[in-house]
């Protein structure tokens, strides 16, 4: 697993620590009012205004199979640069709190946890042991946003819609 030696930013989702390479983080925003887009899947929380452009917001806790986010004082939006189908797109993710920026040593990255792990490990590039013995999961954020992922999620919502339609009739 190749990694450029560089800085990572760590954040909290539930009880766990995650980290993303800082080159993919554009901005950290205070929580603002999110406009919900009806008919979109649950994890797509809606859109906000980021200096005049419309930014989609994702609740990655739902994507990771955790309960949906609760808005607290520390809840922030990480504005990311992600690549979808070879196209760079800006998107925001909701996280419970941002922790710190730290340097990483590539040699010390451990392989991702295997079967039996609590979270969908396909989004995880590796695990890093911090100085305080805490483990941080390094996210491959592009994978989280990959089309297959989205198509899969969209397909699930479509079936629920179809079921609802049936019940109506």
């Amino acid at each position, binding site marked *: 697993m190749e990694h450029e030696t560089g800085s990572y930013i760590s954040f909290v989702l539930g009880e766990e620590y995650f980290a993303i390479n800082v080159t993919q983080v554009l901005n950290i925003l205070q929580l603002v009012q999110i406009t919900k887009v009806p008919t979109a899947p649950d994890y797509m929380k809606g*859109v906000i*205004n980021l200096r005049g452009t419309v930014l989609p917001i994702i609740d990655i806790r739902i994507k990771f199979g955790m309960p949906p986010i609760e808005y607290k004082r520390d809840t922030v939006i990480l504005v990311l640069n992600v690549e*979808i189908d070879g196209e760079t797109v800006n*998107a925001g993710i909701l996280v419970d709190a941002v922790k710190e920026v730290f340097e990483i040593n590539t040699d010390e990255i451990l392989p991702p946890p295997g079967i039996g792990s609590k979270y969908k490990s396909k989004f995880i590039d590796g695990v890093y042991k911090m100085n305080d013995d805490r483990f941080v999961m390094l996210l491959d954020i592009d994978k989280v946003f990959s089309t297959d992922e989205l198509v899969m999620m969209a397909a699930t919502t479509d079936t629920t819609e179809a079921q609802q339609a049936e019940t109506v009739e």
Partner: protein
Amino acid sequence: MDNFQKKFLDEASDLVSQLEQALLTLEQDMGNPELVDSIFRIMHSLKGGGGMFGFDNISSYTHRLENMYDLVRQKKLKVTREMLDITFESADHITSMLNDDGSKTDEIKKNEEILNKRIEAILDGDTMSVVVEAPDKDGDASSGMASYYVKVKPYEHIQRNGTNPLLLIDELVGLGKAKVNIFYSGIPDFEGLVYDDTYVWWEVILATEQDEDAIKDVFIFVEDDCDIVVKRLADGDIFTFEGIEPLLQCGHDFPFDLEKITKLAQAINALEQAKNNEAKKAAEENKGDEHIKKFAKESSISGIRVASEKIDSLMNLVSELITTQAGLNLYADREKNAELTRIAESLENISRQLRDTAFSITLIPIDYLVTRFRRLVRDLSREVGKEIEFEAKGAEVELDKSLIEGISEPLMHILRNSVDHGIESAAERKAAGKSPTGKITLQAYYSGSQVVIAVTDDGQGMNPDKIKRKAIEKGLINPDAQLSDKEAVDLIFMPGFSTSEKVTNISGRGVGMDVVKLKVSDIRGTLSQASEPGEGTTITISLPLTLSIIDGMLVRIADVDYIIPLSVIDTIFAVEHEKIASSFQNVINIEGVQYPFYYLRDEFNIPGEPPEREEIIMVKYEDRKIGVVVDNITGEYQAVLKPLGKLYRSQDIFSGASILGDGTVALVLDTHQVINKFTRYNDIV
């Protein structure tokens, strides 16, 4: 390739399109020396530029053409059809040379050899050419000005309909020069006065360049609420007539002496007529045709070339300004500071003007496409051996440049269809008692906030029975479906439908009207048809004026704002929630009419209690009106449309989002898609 070369390529393709336009005009008016001159000049510029920037092939080729037109200029050669054909093909040839990246060099060379031979044949004079003489045309264009007498006598109740008759008079006077006479005598005593009754009436003498219809149009909505008399008094501007002044001087309540005015006007008109005839004789020697004048005028007006990215970024900045402006207005409203409000208002005034100006820069007249279409129809009709005349009306109508790009291909397909399927062969037309020359008309006009482009042919029309049979054959509809003729013909828009019995080179290559419809709806346009067997077909495209800024209605459902484009809204009613909740099958009865409706709270799965009174907005859907129910209406809003982005592409019921004054985001509803999406399947069939 260096910068200069790039610039030359830009210029050269401009020159080629100028060349095409000049050729098309020349075809109408063979041998017109001005046009020959301008073609010669274009060749000359191409030759010079090509030589200077290292496009030697272009330079040497155009040199031969230039020679040919030089001989025409010296009256040693006459313009022939063959010559025009060669030049048309040369235009294509030059374009392919300009675009050649080296891969097609051989093909181009071969083509060039053939063309060169044909040019030489003409230069040697051994061509069997038919010399077409320039047809004599009467330049019978009168000066345009005319004078009218208009009497406006409103009925007493006119103001109760919300009409202010004074505004009508203002509009009338705005058409030209006018003298207004007012009659007060009908005003009753104070006791008998009803505050919203109208007692006065007017007489207007108007000199205008507009025609009588334009004058009548002023009163188009109040025809039933007043007496209108429009009478043509004279040609020309009556106010300049000698001796008319005393006749036009009249006090209130004393009508114009129409008889005297008319007599004088007629006398003066007769005098002018005599003068005009003399002038016309002189003009005939000059042989000026409208066409050339127009062409000469167009080629003399020149603008500057601006890269389209610059225009895009200008538009982006203007959009941001408008959004910021909305924020300032909101803040000023809240602060209640007179000075701040004043500044905000004057700034709004400026940004509005800036928006309009910037906006007008992005607009391109449809004329831009027309030359290409003229050429297309000309070439295609030759290919299939039909005689077809192409006419474009309203080519000055302007559209956003991205719309022009988006509409070009669908229109091309529609025209191809008309040439290929619509217009019959000359023999068939004769048998049907029609003129052997078919006619295709492209007409563009503004209709509210929409631009309508209609393509009409006088061909055989579409046969509903044949279409129905085909649809049944293809399994698109049920064999015993009951369809009206219009519904049957509408089947051509269904995916997978193509009536052409044999696949031809021109249309019927698998791309049917369904694809055209899809392309048109990509740019938020709608497509419709009207066809009469034996009479012809009209395909109509309606487009929004712009893609980037729309006038919308801001509405709210729960805590989210939505925008519905004003262009689709027909009417709005307030209704009790009770009435909606108790409705059967989502149909509601309003003022005696049954409307189907969509309850957006349910469709969007929005939890919570709805308000007691809700608003039902009737939106236009094809030729019906369908309601959508929202919580309440905030007001009109000028929305700068922003894309929702890739992640939300499956949410196609929203055409985008817009940022409101307080910085929150509102979603722009595409009601057409909303209705399509939420329509339970059996509703349509």
